């Protein structure tokens, strides 16, 4: 139910956004209309158009009030009741949407296709997972101070990188810093040597592949194959309680909305314009005197951090994090969410994440053996038939009507 409302509202929202996210090719006519002495740049677009703001407020009210009401107040017998499963699924899909938004910032606006964003997602998740594991305390199977898997491996004290993770604030700092530092270091070395295009994609894939192998090892200290699971509470609240779930859901929703507005602010800013210019013609931009390195690094690191936040929100709701979350396959799947929705728009990846993962939920429930065929077909057909994604389709129809 939740999925349906937000997709419909997303489409409505898009109608407002569509006029603003005009492709770069239309910049030229706008310049001729400007005054002789101006630089010929089009006016900076508003953050959101009036109808878009309206749609956003309606959506916030609908989800912010409607979902808690439908899940916690309306009795289970009613047709409007939202089950705990639906709330968790909704929260999970929104985490994916945040990650897709993050990926779109680098791919759609900066032309850097990362096949390694699963790594940042999982790193955020692992940082949150470390806190949740410490929060279990003595309630684990072995009743030890150490997480169960460490007792199982016969470790007697916490490794240094686990120190301090019992503090929520420190764990949240890790959620932000770990993806940021890794993204920055990797980005610095690759962008500096002007690795781009397919090469860069391959490098990011190798990065996440190496990390997956590392996290699969028991000796790495992150639970190996099984990862973290069996969480009991978060900040003292029982993690499976419907109230806690609802708060997590609402926080995720808030983060998604804020991330959307924040991303919108960035891509409409001057910085955003330079980033888009890097996508469209990096060499030209360099001839104009810009050094793309800092811009690329900024947008790349920001995207990694946003992805880490999505992962951190994902773990308490899903209740497990393991290395398969950062596997190359999972990371590539993120790219297809963006492609399905429509890259280079901000609402597109959100729609794409909901559409693909919604389809995945339906398929794995009803025809599990055909999901990989379906996913493969999406990968093959979307770039062939829908090069601008669902948004492109909607925009074309919108354009032909007006």
């Amino acid at each position, binding site marked *: 139910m939740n999925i349906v409302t937000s997709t419909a509202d997303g489409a409505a929202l898009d109608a407002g956004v569509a006029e603003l996210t005009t492709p770069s090719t239309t910049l030229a006519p706008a310049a001729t209309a400007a005054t002789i002495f101006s630089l010929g740049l089009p006016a900076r677009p508003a953050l959101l158009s009036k109808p878009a703001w309206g749609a956003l407020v309606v959506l916030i009210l609908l989800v912010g009030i409607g979902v808690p009401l439908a899940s916690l107040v309306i009795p289970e017998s009613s047709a409007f009741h939202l089950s705990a499963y639906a709330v968790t699924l909704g929260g999970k899909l929104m985490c994916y949407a945040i990650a897709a938004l993050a990926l779109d910032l680098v*791919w759609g606006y900066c*032309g850097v*296709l990362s*096949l390694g964003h699963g790594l940042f997602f999982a790193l955020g998740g692992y940082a949150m997972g470390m806190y949740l594991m410490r929060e279990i305390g003595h309630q684990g199977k072995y009743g030890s101070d150490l997480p169960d898997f460490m007792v199982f491996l016969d470790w007697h004290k916490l490794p240094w990188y686990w120190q301090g993770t019992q503090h929520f604030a420190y764990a949240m700092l890790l959620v932000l810093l770990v993806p940021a530092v890794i993204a920055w270091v*990797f980005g610095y*070395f*690759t962008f*500096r*040597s*002007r*690795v781009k*295009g*397919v*090469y860069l*994609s*391959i*490098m990011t*894939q*190798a*990065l996440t*592949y*190496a990390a997956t*192998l*590392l996290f*699969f*090892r028991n000796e790495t200290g992150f639970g190996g194959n099984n990862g973290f699971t069996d969480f009991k509470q978060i900040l003292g609240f029982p993690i499976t309680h419907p109230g806690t779930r609802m708060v997590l859901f609402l926080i995720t929703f808030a983060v998604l909305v804020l991330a959307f507005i924040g991303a919108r602010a960035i891509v409409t800013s001057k910085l955003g314009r330079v980033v888009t210019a890097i996508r469209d013609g990096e*060499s030209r931009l360099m001839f104009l005197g810009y050094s793309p390195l800092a811009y690329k690094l900024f947008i790349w690191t920001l995207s990694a951090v946003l992805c880490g936040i999505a992962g951190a929100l994902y773990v308490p709701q899903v209740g497990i994090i393991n290395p398969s979350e950062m596997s*190359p396959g999972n990371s*590539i799947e993120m*790219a*297809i969410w963006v*492609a399905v929705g429509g890259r280079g728009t901000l609402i597109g990846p959100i729609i794409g994440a909901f559409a693909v993962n919604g389809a995945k939920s339906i398929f794995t429930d009803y025809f599990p053996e055909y999901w*990989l*065929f379906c*996913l*493969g*077909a*999406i*990968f*093959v*057909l*979307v*770039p*062939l038939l829908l*090069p601008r994604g669902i948004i492109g389709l909607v925009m074309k129809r919108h354009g032909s009507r007006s």
Partner: protein
Amino acid sequence: MKFWRMLILLAFASSWAIGAQALTPDDLKPLGADDFDAKAQLIAKLVTTGDAASLTVLKALADDAVSITGNNEILIQDGDNYRDAITGRAVTATDAQPITLSNVLRNQVNSGLSAVQLSSPDLATRQAAVETLLQNPEESLKPLVDQARSRETDAALKKRLDTLWAMTALHNHDPAQRLQAVLLLNARHNLEVGELLRPLLLKNSSGAYAEPDPAVRHAAQAGLDELASIQRRGEIAGTIFAGLSLGSVLLLAALGLAITYGLIGVINMAHGEFLMIGAYATYVVQNFFQQHWPAAFDWYPLAAIPVAFIAAALVGIALERLILKHLYGRPLETLLTTFGVSLLLIQATRMIFGAQNVQVSNPSWMSGGLTVLPNLILPYNRLTILAFSVTVIALSWTVLNRTRLGLFVRAVTQNRQMAACVGIKTGRVDSYAFAFGAGIAGLGGCALAQIGNVGPDLGQGYIIDSFMVVVLGGVGQLAGTIIGAFGLGIASKAIEPFSGAVLAKIAVLVFIVLFIQKRPQGMFALKGRSAES
């Protein structure tokens, strides 16, 4: 000498026939008793006597064919019949109980039997006896070994006997004999000898060396040092070979990737699945031979090679014509599309052949290995693949540098527009080159099937490493791919012993990221205007 032995043996045999023996029934009595020492002494006596009757008893003891009756007669079981152990006369026994020896005594019997057999006139029997004794040398048998050593005429066997003698003489009271023993052992260059030499250099609880004579200790130390250097050489050579072997597979996997990347500028994520198709084609050919032509089974790889090439090339050309052609100029989307194709191919394979690994067996001429050093055996299947991959490289070089298609491929790689202007049908060149690259990957799959598991995920394990080869080696250059593949293979295997396979992968990745700081285009960048996009 030999003649005399035979004569003596003959004499013994005849004496046995008329019933005059050195053994008496009383001698054998301890076999039925519980006294361990008495049994050990009896066996030692049987060995030193060494006549035909003793030999018969020893053989029977080794075969568990000795029984004892209620009134302590020792009998030898022969099928369902019993014979008296000494007279050899047939006996009917109803209450015979088999005598079983403890393991210690059994070893003594086996060694003793071999020692007696050292004097056998038959060379093969003597050889077998020496090998048995080398496994389990006993000092008590030294006199027999001494005799055999002074008698032996076969040069190769004499050497083995020297070693055997050295093993039994290692604790002799005479230092000169000990020194000679150590020198003989040193000359053997066998790693197991280290186990015999090492105890000599240990100190016992009172601080004295186990071996009192410094000259012998010195010789033993020299021998151990040499063994260590042999072992080190073996390990280094083994690492290099493992690296070359990994590199040869990576090379077959990456070659097609490098060609198509250089030509069309897309990285084909489904390239690993061409390996998988090649491997499954090999599997199908193998099954066909098994069912319809088992006589020629050993040569099925020869038939599998063209089948694997054609199967992968056909899928490749279909992929290029149906999908990739429509995406030229959009490399990043092509990446996603080919990933989708790889998902589809894997899932389709799962449905056709099942998710389990399938069994591809080596033909008999590929099993086994070549022993180069005591601790280094090169498996024939890996050697074959190495040779195969060198052949494929040579063929690819010929195709790229000596044929018209190769000329076109190189032209389009360097400058597509210019090539089109001079009349090259670039679209067709793309298709052929893509099929060629896919076919080489199919050959790689055919090779992989001989050394590893064949399953639907086969390609996934190699694809990222192949990408790294292309990144390292640069595109459109055969030499870059070759050096990249073997370099990556050897580097991975060289780091592995120190840090494990996972950290080796990470180290290689870090190295590549740092390497492209210096040479963003790989080791062998194309020169000229085409270089900058």
